């Protein structure tokens, strides 16, 4: 596969997914070539491979014009180190720091060597994802040190700090925001996450494949179907199992239902955040109708555990199709009415427009992804460019904006609600007949796979390695919030503090997803 001037030895392991092993030096050259061609780094994670090859591993997923490239480098057991990639892809910074916290593998010459996921639940000398780390022994030991984190201080006349979190005023996930402000304007924001770190990757180790799907779906509950599908795609690839066509179409149906549920909720909250309680009440009424449809037709308001390895757990009959089709039409008509009100509402438009701007150039530089990326002219959508079944037959229209402000992120949500409602009607019409589940092929030897799904927030990626005994050896679930959180820090600059909740909500990033 040709990237830049070089022909890289990469194997196709699935539609639009490429795999290769290389030396750490080549990794640097490949990253530069991908960046020069306008690609991005999606994920970076490590693994303890000492039971396989006597060392550690560093893995990188890159987005290229031909799809996702997953490359790995073997690292020595004594001095596990790889070249810093954050100077090429700034979004790698926190991922590299997390890889050190969890595995003790080092990005050589990285500028920022502060801890990231680790607070005080384990000592700096311990690495929870090493196979010889005992999770339960660590649980019983008292917290080893007080958490101290070196924030970057802003000094000068009239500068003062506002520290917010980990507990916030509303129903929000835990995280800390350190604002440096002058008057009412934000001079700097620094995020400190990791509060929701609950050891998910360690939990996967040794788990059976079916339980792994349930855990993957709970990495970030609002993206349950995206994670469950990406995980299942990975284990199905690893075991070379085939899934019935109807099950794949139903997975897409679930994913689009999830996208609509989240977008409706966000559109309501964004109205609420600019004091339009009417918007909250209306969109949450529609969302509740949507969730009640989900539990009635599929048995769960958020479709938890409907996607399982080998297929799906719940089918839909002709009456269900008719009911869902009718509901999409009613919701669409109502959302179009509400869109006119949002468009006409002067104070809402005033608060949305030119607030929290991420310019396209900055978005490209820092790797902004998903719906926030598309609102800043980053025209990537896995469903459009690199479609899996059934998206390869659905012609998804990508929603994009160039403004990069709160208004643009609202506009993308409206457009995606309409498009997903259309996709659902299309899926219901063309749903192939047949079974919805086939048992997985048993794993004969150690094997690996990768799943890649465009969730409502952005691309969700899950990489899986299965041991020869059929249990999970290493699972890395990657949330698009990893890339997007740093853009919230940038987007709020120069805005007033009271607009922070609005800007934050317009991204609506996950804490649990990247905290793992």
């Amino acid at each position: 596969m040709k990237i830049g001037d070089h022909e890289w030895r990469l194997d196709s392991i699935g539609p639009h997914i490429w795999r290769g092993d290389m030396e750490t030096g080549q990794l640097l050259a490949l990253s530069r070539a991908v960046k020069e061609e306008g690609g991005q780094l999606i994920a970076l994670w490590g693994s303890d491979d000492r039971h396989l090859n006597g060392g550690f591993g560093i893995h990188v997923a890159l987005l290229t014009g031909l799809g996702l490239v997953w490359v790995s480098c073997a690292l020595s057991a004594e001095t596990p180190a790889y070249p810093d990639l954050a100077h090429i892809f700034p979004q790698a910074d926190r991922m590299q720091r997390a890889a050190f916290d969890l595995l003790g593998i080092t990005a050589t010459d990285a500028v920022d060597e502060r801890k990231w996921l680790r607070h005080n639940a384990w000592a700096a000398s311990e690495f929870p994802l090493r196979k010889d780390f005992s999770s339960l022994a660590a649980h019983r030991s008292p917290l080893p040190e007080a958490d101290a984190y070196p924030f970057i201080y802003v000094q000068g006349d009239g500068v003062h700090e506002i520290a917010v979190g980990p507990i916030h005023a509303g129903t929000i996930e835990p995280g800390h925001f350190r604002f440096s402000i002058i008057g009412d304007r934000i001079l700097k924001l620094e995020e400190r996450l990791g509060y929701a770190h609950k050891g998910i990757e360690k939990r996967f180790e040794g788990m059976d494949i079916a339980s792994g799907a349930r855990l993957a779906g709970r990495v970030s509950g609002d993206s349950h179907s995206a994670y469950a599908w990406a995980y299942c795609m990975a284990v199905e690839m690893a075991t070379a199992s085939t899934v019935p066509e109807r099950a794949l179409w139903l997975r897409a149906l679930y994913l689009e239902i999830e996208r609509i549920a989240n977008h409706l909720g966000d559109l309501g909250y964004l109205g609420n955040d600019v004091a339009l309680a009417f918007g909250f009440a209306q969109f949450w009424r529609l969302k509740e109708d949507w969730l009640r449809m989900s539990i009635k037709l599929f048995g769960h308001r958020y479709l938890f555990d409907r996607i399982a390895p080998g297929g799906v757990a719940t089918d839909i009959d002709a009456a269900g199709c008719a009911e869902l089709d009718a509901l999409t039409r009613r919701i669409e008509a109502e959302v179009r009415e509400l869109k006119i009100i949002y468009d006409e509402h002067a104070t809402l438009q005033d608060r949305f427009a030119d607030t929290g701007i991420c310019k396209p150039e900055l978005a490209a530089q820092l790797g902004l992804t998903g719906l926030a990326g598309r609102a800043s002219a980053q025209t990537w959508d896995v469903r459009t460019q690199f479609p899996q079944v059934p998206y390869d037959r659905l012609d998804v229209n990508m929603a994009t904006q160039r403004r990069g402000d709160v208004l643009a992120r609202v506009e993308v949500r409206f457009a995606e609600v309409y498009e997903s409602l259309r996709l659902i009607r299309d899926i219901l019409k063309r749903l192939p007949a047949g079974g919805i589940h086939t048992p997985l092929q048993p794993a004969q030897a150690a094997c690996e796979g990768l799943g890649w799904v465009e969730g409502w927030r952005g691309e969700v990626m899950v990489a899986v390695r299965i041991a020869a005994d059929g249990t999970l050896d290493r699972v890395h679930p990657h949330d698009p919030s990893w890339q997007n959180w740093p853009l919230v820090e940038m987007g709020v600059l120069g805005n007033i503090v009271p607009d922070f909740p609005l800007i934050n909500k317009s991204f609506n990033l996950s804490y649990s997803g990247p905290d793992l």
Partner: protein
Amino acid sequence: MASYLILQKILKTGFVSEPAPQPDPALRTREQALQAEILKVFGQAVAIRHVDAGSCNGCELEIHALNGPHYNIDGLGVKFSASPRHVDVLLVTGPVSRHMEAALKRAYDAIPDPKWVVAMGECACTGGMFGESYASCGKISNVIPVDVEVPGCPPTPTALLQGILAAVSKDAPNANG
């Protein structure tokens, strides 16, 4: 223009609020001696502070849903508050991550007595899929005392409301005195 459209939409939508469910006393895990006295004074008006102690954010979706128009919690006297110092009930979701242990204890201590703790969701009640590990303390009652446990992954808004009402309702066994 916008005001006219808003009024038109409100009139067309009408009322969607539904009657409240009954409290579910079976969800209680302990009774507090003061409960009866408190309830005499305050009735069912209750202020809640929510803390996410490490949840996957699934339970948060249902807390948001509970604030929607179908459930009309304001009409029941139930109100979410920004500060623990103003509340009667601490609603906790998630297993308690070790990184949230100190913050959760501090929030609990900041609530004036008497107070009730409602643990919401499978993880809060049992530790759930995340269990106890180097990074997780497991269920809420491993860290602070819990009065009501609402199971489910996530519990529906109705189940959550039944749990909240059970914490503060008048039919507790010791509520006759």
